[in-house]
């Protein structure tokens, strides 16, 4: 499901467009514009996935996690939409007053695939979250995306979020990475 082959790197022009798309996406999420994000930046055939990865010895030959295994996120489009809807009910006490989330997106590498309009894009992230008076957390990892060209923009088709930390040092991971 998540092993679309990455072919040659995209041109600098396309790389620029894709980078701008990623920055725009981060801006929407930072501003709490989740509806705009899900309506315009996300494809209806989405798979949004954050596997749980154990610490294993290098001699361990068991396979990597698949979408059939335990995962923190393993959502289709409607499921992510429901997560957005929950945030907009006005009854999420933890988000009133709102917390701030800041995305630093770097190391964007984009590749062509077999399809003209689809690209494999890898990026690193640091997400900082601040809440209440002193509460703060940071999450570091990488994303492996399949991105589709749609009209003037792009839509997210698949996202695999890999967190670097085994134990999450935060109350929850209810953040769109």
């Amino acid at each position, binding site marked *: 499901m998540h092993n679309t082959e990455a072919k040659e790197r995209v041109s600098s022009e396309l790389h620029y467009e894709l980078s701008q798309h990623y920055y725009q996406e981060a801006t929407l999420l930072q501003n709490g514009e989740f509806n705009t994000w899900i309506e315009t930046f996300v494809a209806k055939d989405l798979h949004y996935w*954050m596997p*749980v*990865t*154990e*610490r*294993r*010895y290098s001699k*361990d030959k068991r396979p990597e996690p698949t979408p*059939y*295994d*335990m*995962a*923190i*996120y*393993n*959502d289709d489009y409607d*499921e992510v939409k*429901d*997560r957005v*809807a*929950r*945030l907009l*009910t*006005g*009854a*999420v*006490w*933890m988000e009133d007053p709102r917390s701030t989330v800041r995305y630093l997106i770097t190391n964007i590498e984009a590749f062509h695939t077999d399809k003209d309009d689809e690209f494999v894009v890898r990026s690193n992230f640091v997400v900082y979250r601040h809440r209440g008076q002193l509460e703060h957390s940071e999450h570091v990892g990488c994303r492996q995306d399949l991105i589709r060209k749609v009209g003037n923009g792009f839509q997210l088709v698949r996202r695999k979020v890999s967190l670097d930390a*085994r*134990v*999450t*040092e*935060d*109350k*929850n*991971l*209810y*953040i769109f990475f």
Partner: protein
Amino acid sequence: MVDINKLVDTKSSTQSKEVFWDQEVYDREIKNIFGRSWLFLTHECMLEKKGDFITTKMAEDSVIVTRHTDGSLKAFVNSCTHRGNSICTADSGNTKSFVCNYHGWVFSTDGKLVDVPLREKCYHDELDRDSLSLKTIRVESYRGFVFGCFDETAPSLEDFLGDWGWYLDTWMVGAGEGAELVGPPMKSILKCNWKVPTENFVGDGYHVGWTHASALHVLGGELGGLAGNQAEMPFDELGIQVTTRHGHGFGVIDNAAIAIHAKRDEYAKYMEETIPKVAENLGEPRAKLFNGHWNCSTFPNCSFLYGTNIFKVWHPRGPHEIEVWSWVIVHKDMSDEGKREVVKQAARSFGTAGTLESDDGDNMVQSTQVNRGSYTREGAMNSTMGQGYEGEHPDYPGIVGSSFIGETSYRGFYRFYQEMMSADSWDDIRANDEHWADCFPNKNYWKDRIAAKAAEAEGE
């Protein structure tokens, strides 16, 4: 100074706020509670083959659990008998032996020291390897669920569970095949006292409608009606709450086992087919529970939601922090497709990014951290809801409360907590076996209530 013998008042149903905060109280818990209780380790399905191992924690102690070459389960402290280094740093795997990274001592899967580098040349063959095994821990399993205990004088796991085992059998035996856990566990840190989530899972039906209003709105369905704690709901008719001798307890919402699962075609089909078999196997009272949704804690720090099927351990890390581990419960006789559906839905609602679990974090943390204030910390917390509306029940063992929205299970949890904190030994605790339920004085509650119901029915 905190009086350890007066942390809990079972008459007024209150607990000192120090139980969430005080370091001395915590130190005593580590000794009297975590040092003496059976603590959840893993499920046997994660240790199927010889040499399989997992690492976990018993309170703050790191432990290794293995399937030894003779087929038996072993558990030992994850610390080398040379200079104390941790000997295993992986979450799980399969191995013939564990080699300490510091100086290379080698331990077998039963914790014996089998080899030491330079044994002849530098230890002159004088090292007494037999006396240098890893510290072993008692290990027993109940229906495949593996527990460990540091205390040689503790009762067997089965006796420690007591009546709670009768309830657990509802799904741990079920229609015959029972259940297992799916990992690897999600893990996260929460800056709360370990008892806040434990009490929440053991007996807090009350918070659901308020805390989780947002998720319930989006979900709709059976539990959608709980959002906002609407006064017109007949809570007394919708379920019960139970507590038992050793503090284990739960609340049940009738006919709501799978209500939290937004996608549940396979699970619904499974339940429909299985409930009659459970009735045949275990009788009607438990078949009814099989179709209910349970919020539970196994004393002291293992909680789960049967139905939603999340399974958690709250490992303490000092009085103000825990490490949460979450697995998913699946019925062994479900289709693979059904199991995958359950894993996905359980993680979605109660995993680290859970649509419901994410609501709870602030409650847990704030109820703990607010006690930084010494003036705040004075006095007691209240758990009187439904006091007196509980007692012995003709069908269900333990003490049964009238509604899943009540604090019967809080009372039972803290009653046993105080008993363990005050007791010098398991003998002291055993001496109280006959009288543990004295603090639930309304002995005829259910008899009277059932008789009144019958009379009412006749009158109609």
